[in-house]
């Protein structure tokens, strides 16, 4: 890290392409030589402040810190914290900043980690702020793609499902737009198309993209297939939800025309948008993604704490 400037990760664009490359390199080294890193964060504490529950993300952060030899403290929902008594983000973070060396926080309100970063001198990692950003998911996705494809440029990425509200999709597009020769195939029902402000970004960047409603039609072109969940709470009525939720279910049958080296991804948890019969297909990478998530979070914690691990 340069100087004494505290770095935070609020949005994926807080990191340069080179810094992301560095994180990917560290994550790959962690995978190869885990013992080299097992005491890297000894006597350091990570606070996980989850004002909104997300067991999966919290466990990933905690596992990452424990594997670095560090310790964890925190709370897992606003109910079990003083936030339920009306304590503000500012006050919570000011307090916890005196205990922990680094904070990962999730909050239902958009922009909450910006406030957190203003109130403390320890690095803040945004572990999701409402429908806004979730940069460690995006880092996870980039590491998965990089490991499976050996590159982050020159490929066709299919994004399928809820492209309207799916923040992981928006964030992944934003991150991959910085790499060369990426084509996007946007697969969704009309109701859940990518919003205009996102297609504006694609147009501005001069990106090659197409919007399509049929998953099977898109399949043969794809190098990456990123599936997302169609969430019940996005719909005004049950009828629309029931009609649409099954439209984009991935089955072995739909994969018949897919490339042999397709990479199937999903931010998890899934409901039924990917049939469990796909799980054994070697192209299914969504559980592997969770392992990548742990490795990249380890690399990120080291980066934000400014810890360099010496060669063994």
């Amino acid at each position, binding site marked *: 890290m340069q100087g004494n400037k505290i770095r935070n990760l609020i949005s994926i664009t807080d990191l340069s392409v080179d810094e992301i490359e560095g994180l990917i390199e560290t994550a790959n080294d962690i995978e190869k030589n885990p013992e080299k890193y097992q005491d890297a964060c000894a006597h350091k504490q990570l606070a996980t402040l989850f004002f909104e529950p997300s067991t999966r993300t919290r466990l990933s952060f905690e596992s990452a810190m424990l594997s670095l030899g560090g310790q964890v403290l925190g709370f897992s929902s606003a109910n079990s914290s003083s936030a339920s008594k009306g304590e503000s983000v500012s006050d919570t973070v000011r307090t916890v900043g005196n205990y922990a060396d680094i904070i990962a926080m999730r909050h*239902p309100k*958009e*922009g*909450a980690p910006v*406030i957190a970063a203003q109130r403390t001198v320890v690095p803040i990692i945004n572990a999701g702020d*409402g*429908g806004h950003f979730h940069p460690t998911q995006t880092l996870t996705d980039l590491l998965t793609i990089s490991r499976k494809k050996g590159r982050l440029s020159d490929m066709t990425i299919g994004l399928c499902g809820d492209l309207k509200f799916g923040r992981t999709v928006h964030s992944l597009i934003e991150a991959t737009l910085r790499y060369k020769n990426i084509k996007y195939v946007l697969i969704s029902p009309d109701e859940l198309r990518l919003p205009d402000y996102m297609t504006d970004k694609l147009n501005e960047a001069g990106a090659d993209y197409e919007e399509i409603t049929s998953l099977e039609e898109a399949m043969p072109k794809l190098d990456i297939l990123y599936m997302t969940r169609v969430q019940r709470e996005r719909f005004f009525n049950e009828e629309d939800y029931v009609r649409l939720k099954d439209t984009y279910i991935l089955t072995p049958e739909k994969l018949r025309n897919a490339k042999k080296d397709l990479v199937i991804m999903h931010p998890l948890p899934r409901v039924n948008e990917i049939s469990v019969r796909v799980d054994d297909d070697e192209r299914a990478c969504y559980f592997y993604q969770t392992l990548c998530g742990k490795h990249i979070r380890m690399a990120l914690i080291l980066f934000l704490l400014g810890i360099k691990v010496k060669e063994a």
Partner: protein
Amino acid sequence: MNIDGVNTGIVLDHIKAGKSMEIYEYLGLDKLSSCVAIIQNVKSGKYGKKDIIKIDEIIDLDLDALGYFDSNITVNYIKDGKLVEKKHAELPDRLTDVIKCKNPRCITSTEQEIPHVFELVDKEKKMYRCVYCDALVKLK
């Protein structure tokens, strides 16, 4: 005060017709002890009609605040009867507690007493972005 000319002072020109009183109050000109003249509905080739404010003193003007109000305003600084400087009010890069974020999911809707801060993203379109939730607001 000679309202035709200011010997030493400031002339705010090209104010949208009818807006001069608001600006007078917004800038707190009522608190000055020097002469202030408000001239309304002056014929102007550029905008049809305009207002002008003349202040008989050189004061420290918040050009950002003025720019938020009306970015067409020009500020003329006059010394010894001569125009010494002409400035254009511009949209400020940052607005703090001038407009409020209307996104109900924004942290500003629940967090106690935090400033509402917006940053200019597009001068032409007069577009500002909430620094917390990225919600876009277009100024009228």
